[in-house]
């Protein structure tokens, strides 16, 4: 009896061992000489009566696609499927993965489970995907908005191509690729590949950096208002901004006072920052402008509660000569306001015309401090009536509990 039982146990153990050892074979994917790429679909759409019959800009991105004998796509080296319009906020870490149960991807790599960038010169590139460097063919194909993967779609649904082009990526360089509308009247589309330089610049970690782009389509701000998104949350950006705008910044002391009349940091009320020009063709990186992380004298070197308000004025106007009412949202594209505070969802209670984005600063538990405020590198992009914020963070010390 006993011997039988022991035999039984030993044989079961043997089987388990075999099963377990059989499972340990792992093929690690590796890309030699990668470039780091992040893709945004800036072509926006809304579901309204007026846009009912428009094509929905919902894409599948194919990098180095393989074609079958009949010239149709059968696969690709890299597939970024379900590429939806981008989110207003592109967070420094791909937090979409844990926060959504939809297949739609607000950016690439976004929710895709792919190899991502390393910590490069202190910057966390986990929102950038590794892509083979060199000349790569990029195709953006329209796809229906459903949950069927691109290559399982019916044949007739796979042939609508928006963009088919070749881009050149250098090894170990960081790129953002923007899918854009270039002409609002002619409805031309195109891409803009920008080689980022933030990881090469000697940026201080006690300054907050931001640069601005206006990637609006040609003729957007001049166009008839009924052709634009009728979304009240866009506020003064709804009708677009003019091709050349000056940016002024105010730093407010506290995110608890939700008013544009609240106290500002000394020296940072309507401070001129930079000029932004509409550009959908050249890939030059806009210069970064900065403000000190500890600008407020209420800050203690660990935590600060400041928030940012950006005024975009047409040349000739400034916060002092501003002829509009604070609550005017139809300013003839001469003035637009952006409030960056909290999570970008909380409106000011004062009567004003700003659209909302999250605070540029990152607050996380790091070391013994919870939260600890960190400086970041940011990009603010105006595309037609909308504004987008991309925040890049550094690597932080892990939390100590």
């Amino acid at each position, binding site marked *: 009896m006993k011997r039988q039982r022991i035999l039984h146990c030993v044989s079961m153990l043997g089987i388990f061992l075999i099963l377990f050892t059989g499972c340990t074979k792992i093929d690690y994917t590796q890309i030699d000489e990668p470039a780091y790429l992040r893709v945004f679909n800036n072509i926006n759409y*809304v*579901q*309204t*009566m*007026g846009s*009912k*019959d428009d094509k929905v800009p919902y894409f599948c991105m194919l990098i180095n696609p393989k074609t079958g004998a009949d010239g149709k796509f059968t696969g690709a080296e890299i597939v970024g499927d379900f590429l939806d319009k981008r989110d207003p906020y592109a967070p420094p870490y791909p937090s979409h993965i844990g926060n959504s149960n939809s297949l739609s991807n607000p950016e690439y790599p976004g929710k895709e489970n792919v190899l991502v960038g390393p910590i490069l010169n202190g910057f966390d590139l986990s929102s950038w995907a590794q892509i083979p460097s060199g000349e790569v063919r990029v195709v953006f194909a329209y796809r229906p908005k*459903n949950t069927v993967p691109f290559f399982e779609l019916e044949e007739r649904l796979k042939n609508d191509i928006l963009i088919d082009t070749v881009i050149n990526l250098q090894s170990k360089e960081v790129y953002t690729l923007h899918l854009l509308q270039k002409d609002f009247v002619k409805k031309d589309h195109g891409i803009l590949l920008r080689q980022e330089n933030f990881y090469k610049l000697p940026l201080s970690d006690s300054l907050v950096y931001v640069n601005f782009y206006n990637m609006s389509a040609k003729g957007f701000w001049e166009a*008839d208002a*009924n052709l634009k998104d*009728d979304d009240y949350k866009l506020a003064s950006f709804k009708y677009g901004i003019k091709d050349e705008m000056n940016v002024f910044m105010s730093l407010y002391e506290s995110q608890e006072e939700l008013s544009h009349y609240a106290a500002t940091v000394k020296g940072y009320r309507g401070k001129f920052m930079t000029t932004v020009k509409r550009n959908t063709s050249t890939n030059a990186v806009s210069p970064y402008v900065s403000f000190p992380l500890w600008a407020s004298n209420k800050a203690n070197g660990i935590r600060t509660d400041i928030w940012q308000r950006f005024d975009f004025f047409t040349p000739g106007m400034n916060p002092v000569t501003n002829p509009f009412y604070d609550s005017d949202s139809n300013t003839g594209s001469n003035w637009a306001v952006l409030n960056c505070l909290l999570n970008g969802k909380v409106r000011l209670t004062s009567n004003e015309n700003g659209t909302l984005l999250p605070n540029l600063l990152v607050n996380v538990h790091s070391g013994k401090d919870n939260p600890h405020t960190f400086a970041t590198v940011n990009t603010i992009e105006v595309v037609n009536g909308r504004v987008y914020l991309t925040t890049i963070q550094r690597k932080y010390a892990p939390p100590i509990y």
Partner: protein
Amino acid sequence: MNRTNNCEIKYKMSQMKCLGCFFVCLFISILQSCKHDNLTMPVPNENIRPAADFIHNNYEMRLFDAALQKTGMTAELNGEGPFTVLVPNDLAFNEIGIFRPTDFDKMNKDSLRRIIAYHILPRRLYLRDIPSNSVDFRYATREGSELYASLGSLMPGATAPTNALFFSGAKAIRKDVVLSNGVLHVLNKLMKPQFEKNIQEWLSDKKEYMVFVAGLKKFGLWDQLAKKGPFTVFAPTNEALEKRGVTMSFLEGANPEQYIGEVLFGAYIMYDKHFFISDSQVFNIINSNGSYKYHLKDKVHYMEYFADEAYPTWKLSYNMRLRSNDMFNSIILADITYSVAARMDYLCSNGVVHDLDKGLVSPDQAIKKEENEK
């Protein structure tokens, strides 16, 4: 001592055995007592009938049944399937002037067959299979062409779905009726596909739009209606235009140079749009806004369009309000409401046509002004 111990153990063992036996018996007897003589295995419900039989036995669908029998599709619909049958109820047929089965005899059998086949999908399509908040989701029909399904499910911020379902403009008033070979939805309206016919061909067939057609021709708007579009045309009847002072005799004498054609006749055309009247209702659910506002092609006049089931009749009706420009204090040139559901949603190959019994613009409202007058 040892022996007594042994005895005790044996005694206890036998006691345990007895208990064991007892419990086994108990379980068996409990199970036995559960035995239910009338218990039958769950067999498929025999009352669920195939599509044609179900329709035949339903008093609400007598006319659709008659149409099926006339076109000889009964046997097919009782076949294996699967089918989704979209059945307009008898009221829906009454609306278009069909009251008894013999009325179908007046119709061409082949075109009737095509229309009935358009109401049948060669698949099982439950409400849950249609993506929520989808508009113009297309499904192939038995006829071969596609129909447009729109489902207004969730209002912004709502947690409970509204699930207003429409097929090519007809509302599903009863959804998900299970059949043995498919599923059935009851419609409140007949879908009116015109198949290969484009809007131009459709309009030119109809005598009641004669003046409208003549006007379109006179002002150079006619040829485009044979093109790809899509267009949504609100076709005014001859009487409607007459009330606005537009008649054949007026058109014969009128000088096209004198009038803004895009207002006088262009006001009845929505360009690049493919609207069923029910679309407004769907968008009323999807983003709480079912209206569509646009400038006419003269870039001055401003149209506000919406449709809804509104008080006091709760009939689906559409409303068009034409303004002299887009300012809030502009002059309202026309404000019309139309609610004859049976004469809406003629689905042509390049758009949708709706009947209109009131005119929008009278000729004197569309006179071209000199530059300095504007």
